[in-house]
């Protein structure tokens, strides 16, 4: 048989951020398995994924990238999980002329690192305006409280977009409150917000903090008539898991949600559940799509060559879980066509009608 094509993946597989990395890995593995089972790429070669752990540390991300490139001679890199790690490891791949595809980096400036840096994750600037517009139309929101984790690149980027969009839509921001990604207590901020009588809470946070925040908001008596609008980080089953009933009515925009229509998604969710005995999240879906995008690009490139692969990637035209997908000139997703706005009902994501 032909030699497998080696692809490296740098993910947080240990440490506090491991929950993201493991989901992403699950998505990659599932897709790669399917692709290899269906005959692989480049006329019968299989994809061999080599994972390295970055443990959420930039130095380890760099070392992992260098090890994968220099020792394992991979042709392309996937990951790393966190934007901070991408800022450190991206330049390494770029310097060696190796495509590196972030599947979960949404911070501003990621693809500015260089020609070889791609990302398949929709930046917040594509998703959030859609969400806000829809919510405004449906609930007639005029005045909101804006909350975000200010010590994290991902949530800070989300906040920037939220703020800009709210201003553009002419929605008044009654207050801006911050917290740390590690915080578990939001009661002072929420108590203050409660007294401001806002129409909605707009939150940029990761799932753990977000879930806790939703729970506490409802506990403190911010009524369910005041919707809580989340960013990308909210698109996780964890929100409903942590907040329970309180999660009902949370509004999230995203390119993917678990109950998304279509056979392709049904298949994905089913195989995922079968393989891992748990529900996929957005990170897994993005990773899954990315693997297909990469496989197709290999076939277009015609050989396992990094430079050719890069050029092939720019011509991506995929229709996957996330909907129609193309890279823009900046090697970020070109459109936000696939974005849908969902809401949680009875603990499940459903389309916001």
């Amino acid at each position, binding site marked *: 048989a032909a030699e497998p094509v080696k692809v490296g993946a740098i993910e947080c597989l240990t440490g506090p951020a491991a929950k993201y990395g493991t989901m992403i890995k699950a998505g990659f593995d599932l897709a790669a398995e399917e692709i290899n089972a269906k005959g692989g790429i480049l006329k019968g070669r299989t994809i061999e994924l080599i994972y390295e752990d970055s443990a959420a540390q930039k130095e380890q991300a760099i070392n992992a990238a*260098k090890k994968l490139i220099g020792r394992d001679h991979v042709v392309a890199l996937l990951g790393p999980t966190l934007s901070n790690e991408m800022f450190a490891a991206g330049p390494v791949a770029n310097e060696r002329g190796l495509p590196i595809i972030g599947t979960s980096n949404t911070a501003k400036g990621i693809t500015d690192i260089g020609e070889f840096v791609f990302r398949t994750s929709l930046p917040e600037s594509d998703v959030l305006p859609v969400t806000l517009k829809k919510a405004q139309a449906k609930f007639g929101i005029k005045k909101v409280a804006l909350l975000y984790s200010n010590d994290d690149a991902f949530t800070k980027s989300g906040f920037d977009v939220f703020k800009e969009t709210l201003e553009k839509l002419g929605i008044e921001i009654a207050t801006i409150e911050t917290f740390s990604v590690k915080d578990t207590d939001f009661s002072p901020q929420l108590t203050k917000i409660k007294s401001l009588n806002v129409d909605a809470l707009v939150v940029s946070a990761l799932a753990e903090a977000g879930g806790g925040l939703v729970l506490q908001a409802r506990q403190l008596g911010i009524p369910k008539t005041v919707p809580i609008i989340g960013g990308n980080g909210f698109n996780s089953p964890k929100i409903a898991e942590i907040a329970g009933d309180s999660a009902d009515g949370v509004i999230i925009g995203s390119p993917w949600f678990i109950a998304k229509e279509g056979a392709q998604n049904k298949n994905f969710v089913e195989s995922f559940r079968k393989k891992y005995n748990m529900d996929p999240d957005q990170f897994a879906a993005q990773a899954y799509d990315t693997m297909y995008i990469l496989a197709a690009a290999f076939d277009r490139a015609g050989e396992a060559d990094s430079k050719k692969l890069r050029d092939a990637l720019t011509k991506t035209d995929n229709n996957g879980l996330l909907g129609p997908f193309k890279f823009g000139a900046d090697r970020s997703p070109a459109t936000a066509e696939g974005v849908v706005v969902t809401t949680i009902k009875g603990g499940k994501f459903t389309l916001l009608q």
Partner: protein
Amino acid sequence: MMATLDDLLWSYQSLIYGLGTNAILGLSMYAVLQLGQLSLGQAAFMGIGAYTGALLTLRLGLPFPLVLAAAAMVPALAALVIGGPTMKLSGVHLAIATIGLGEVLRVAYINTDAMGGALGLSGIPEKSTFAIIFGLLAVILAGFILASRSKIGRACEAIREDEAAARVMGIDVSAYKMTALVISAALAGLAGALNAHFSSFIGPNEFAFEAAVSILSFAILGGVTTPFGPVLGAFVLTALPELLRPFHDFRLVFNGLIIVLVVIFLPRGILGFRIRRTGG
């Protein structure tokens, strides 16, 4: 053959750079621990140096030697300022006060857009080289060795063992402490700038509590009775996670296990011997 060798070097280049800068951090901890001062401000000083260095390079494009000098000077000045009030603290009280400094600075970075806020500073050009890092390390290490073997080292050890007795022996304990704090801040700042200039990116959360603890562990694991200890400790702790990569999921398990075993069997540090000096 050459190509593989090159690849090998390239693959481990940043690891090797990391060994060097972390060794400098270990020595910066040594500078204060030598006097029995448990300052955990090292991470904060490292942050000041890293941000100073990165900003000077990114915004003003200053030449690297100048950048490094500034990255050492600014935290040293900060140490001079906070040195006075913290001087009367000792042990864990000093530790918590210096950690507090780190937290306050972290909040400051996060809230300062000019410093990139939570997004940090990215795209820092690679300027640190093997020669610069290890040249500096060699000079610093040599300085510490010479100082430790002289009457200065003796005075430091006396202060560590019994401050009051050292005072009565005519040792100006406050001056020693202040000097040590300033030197350690300068070294930490230097290491911060070196790190920033080979890892492209720095962020506000890199210089907090966890970083302070790991810098401390470089010194303690290696041993603080000679300057070689912190250097070796830094080497070991930096290289371990990379060397253990083949263990995949169990990588950090083994990493932890090795640390535990080393400390149990060598409780005074890997290099627990005392440095030779007159009468030793």
